[in-house]
């Protein structure tokens, strides 16, 4: 077994304590303004988000739709970089206690150096990573040990096309949670869930995975969030949140209102 011992971090502890309605929010670092990163994190925690994925901006985000692409560009134009992100996050654990993940394409991380990156993430108090274009074979062969040693859960994706045997392999290779990509799509879609999506989620439930699941891509409002929560431990919202803060003149207020609009139970 690859992951006999579960990583002990804020993600695994969260899912032990809370099995339902976990609301995870994706935000691009350095967006909408360069210095907004930490302010957004604090506001999200205060508003009742359960977990945050901090996006490391990249020039060529191929798995992302227009909204997140545009936010990446704004962040880069603002002068955001991985080095600067780590500087901004220094001391964040004095102010934010919910699980924090870093999400990013692999190239900026390879340029920083994977080992240095993991160590720095650990020092800051990051709990997990989502690296969509890091192949699972490379992760298992070269990076898993480092990530485990730094207490980082590497979150892996499952899509409607992922085979059952591969889902089992993914379930064995990771802890924290499994990121269920809701449909064959890039980020940013809106609208209701289809019957095909629901049967895909049911297929996953029937597999009784050892990891909890969160549904992401296309979760944009209370309705889609609640549907997702019916099939998984919770859901991830990205583009809809980015749109909310893109032109905000009252970040704290808009973030509070957004989270409230999704998660009525708060």
């Amino acid at each position: 077994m690859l992951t006999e011992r579960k990583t002990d971090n804020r993600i695994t502890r969260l899912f032990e304590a809370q099995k339902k309605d976990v609301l995870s929010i994706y935000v691009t670092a350095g967006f909408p303004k360069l210095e907004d990163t930490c302010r957004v994190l604090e506001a999200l925690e205060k508003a009742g988000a359960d977990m945050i994925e901090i996006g490391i901006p990249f020039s060529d985000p191929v798995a992302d739709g227009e909204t997140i692409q545009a936010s990446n560009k704004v962040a880069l134009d603002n002068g955001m970089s991985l080095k600067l992100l780590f500087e901004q996050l220094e001391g964040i654990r004095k102010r934010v206690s919910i699980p924090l993940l870093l999400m990013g394409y692999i190239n900026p991380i390879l340029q920083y150096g994977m080992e240095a990156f993991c160590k720095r993430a650990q020092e800051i108090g990051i709990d997990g990573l989502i690296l969509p274009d890091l192949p699972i074979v490379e992760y298992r062969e070269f990076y898993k040990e480092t990530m485990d040693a730094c207490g980082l859960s590497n979150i892996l994706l499952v899509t409607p096309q992922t085979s059952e045997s591969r889902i089992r392999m993914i379930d064995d290779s990771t802890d924290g949670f499994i990121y269920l990509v809701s449909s064959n799509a890039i980020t940013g879609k809106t609208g209701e869930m289809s019957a095909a999506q629901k049967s895909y989620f049911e297929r996953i439930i029937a597999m009784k995975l050892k990891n909890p699941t969160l549904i992401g891509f296309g979760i944009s409002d209370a309705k889609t969030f609640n549907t997702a929560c019916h099939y998984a431990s919770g859901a991830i919202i990205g583009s809809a949140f980015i749109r909310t803060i893109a032109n905000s003149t009252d970040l704290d207020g808009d973030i509070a209102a957004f989270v409230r609009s999704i998660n009525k139970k708060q």
Partner: protein
Amino acid sequence: MTTYQVNERGYYGNFGGAFIPEMLYPNVEELRTRYLDIIEEPSFQEEFQQLLKDYVGRPSPLYFAKRLSEKYGTKVYLKREDLNHTGAHKVNNTLGQILLAKRLGKKNIIAETGAGQHGVATATVCALMGMDCIVYMGEVDIERQKPNVGRMKLLGAKVIPAMSGSRTLKDATNEAMRHWISNPVDTHYIIGSVVGPHPYPDMVARFQSVISEEMKWQLKEQTGKEDPDCIIACVGGGSHAMGAFYHYLDREQVRLIGAEAAGLGISTGESAATTFIGRAGVLHGSKTLLMQTEDGQVVEPYSISAGLDYPGIGPVHAHLHDTKRADFFAVTDMEAMAAGMELCRLEGIIPAVESAHALAVLKKEQFKENEVVVINLSGRGDKDLETYLRELKRKTPH
């Protein structure tokens, strides 16, 4: 022994791999596990070879360029990929891939294009096979390669402008990948060069390898020897260069030269000469040399030629560069335009601006009188008429 072939894991030395999001895994894995078996099937080979002959017009001539040879004091042969149907080498690959896509049961085809040659070659084989075709093309390239946009439309393809980034080849590739993520089931993505996740670089190289396969017997016929002294090709992603190098990779006595687009010059910040200003990085699914900032952001490339305006190169070329098996030259816009115009006047051949970069190497490297130098003339210059005429006007204003 150093090997220049891809290994089990999809790597050429330190370069290659398949750095793709999980959404693309089933498609790429299907290709990886099936491409070799399909390509080696007799029925595939029969259909492919027949179409290369009757539809593409292969073999493409190997032409001894007498006046060019006299000018440079060496023996220059041009491998005339410009005479292929659709006007460039690209069709060798699109034909191979569409036959493969058919055998995989795919219904729809997508492609990216820079110069529009790959887009035209894809639209062409889609018409031939009755398949739906969408081509992504950067908005800037749509403007500078208008004739090819018209050809694609005439052939029934839908051309979708890529509006992000530098609005050139890199961005068109991003959009094609996004389309594939959103339509994974019955769509095949025909990548136009030896780039992308494994097995694309190897698959495309195999389809283009017909170039050096023919060169071997053509050279034997014309010079008495299969080996030339040197092969020169321009490198965007590097597909026709790879096609021309393929059967000579292990013959170390044959010198291999790649010509990269230096744009306004490699130190100007307006360039696409990846081996000169790139570092190892990951883009479009493979680890390769990549033009990037210290932070790992991809740098927008620049070249006068849309087909070379790309911030990376195929991983196999990164490996050839690493192992010093191939030499790379940086050719500026001006040098390429001069070399292209020279070929017009010396040989009556209007080359693609991409191919003109390879021709410009003759001015940078002195070859001996009895040396045999093959230049892979990847395409014809019809699409570049406006660019050439602008240059002509600049040179002779009255």
